[in-house]
């Protein structure tokens, strides 16, 4: 897997976790069962995202910032050739799905970075 894609995946997972705490879906469980302090958790997640984004190359960080500002999803999984960011078929390449993760690709329709799920 491309090192920059690996960073993007980690950022996406953290953003997803943050979203679960802000849209209410995870909030009750995390506070009632696990005794999480939501505000502290969000701050900590934001710091980690910022730190990881700082490790992106300038070109990828600029693309990341453009997507991150307007949508919750910056990396979309590609499953069976479909981008799950926009549910449109992405162009098929001869390389195997796993090989395609050796490059940082974006969906030409929704702009998300693409992670090919094996």
């Amino acid at each position, binding site marked *: 897997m491309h090192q920059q894609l690996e960073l993007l995946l980690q950022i996406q997972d953290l953003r997803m976790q943050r979203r*679960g705490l802000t849209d209410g879906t995870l909030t009750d*469980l995390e506070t009632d*069962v*696990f*005794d999480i302090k939501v505000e*502290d958790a969000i701050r900590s997640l934001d710091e980690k995202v910022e730190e990881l984004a700082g490790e992106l190359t300038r070109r990828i960080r600029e693309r990341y910032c453009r997507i991150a500002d307007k949508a919750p999803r910056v*990396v979309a999984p590609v499953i069976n050739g479909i981008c799950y960011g926009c549910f449109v078929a992405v162009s098929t390449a001869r390389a195997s799905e796993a090989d395609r993760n050796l490059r940082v690709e974006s969906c030409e329709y929704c702009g998300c970075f693409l992670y090919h799920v094996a």
Partner: protein
Amino acid sequence: MKLRELFVPSAIKLDLAAETKDEALRELVSCMGLDEKSEGILYKMLKRRENLGSTGIGRGIAIPHCRSLVVTRLRVAFGRKLSGLDFKAIDEKPVRYVFLIVAPPLEVSNQYLPVLGKIAQFGKEADVPESLAEISSPEQFIELLDAKDL
């Protein structure tokens, strides 16, 4: 969906080799059948969740959980370490039973939260820690869930 249908015998470890919380997380992640890179990402994500606050809910039970792009469907694993692990649990007691739950960001059937909730509820039942200590095979673990109609 019943919990017992989600647990596969290969992801039920009644004698974890792990001596620490981190090792236990790694050992359970390795039950997921992922490639090395994906295992690494999942482990980091679980660690980051633990850093927000321990998933040790007390009475020897921990429920590490996260969503990650590296899994394609909801996955669960169970690990037991009878000598106990330091998990920085809410009651500061050692953790003996670890339920791992991971889910992709998008799930058609949206099971992540109900499953997390059911396992938390199971973990709070008075007789559960003792029952988990007594089982001697993955099949008995499944039978225990069955007996609770989970």
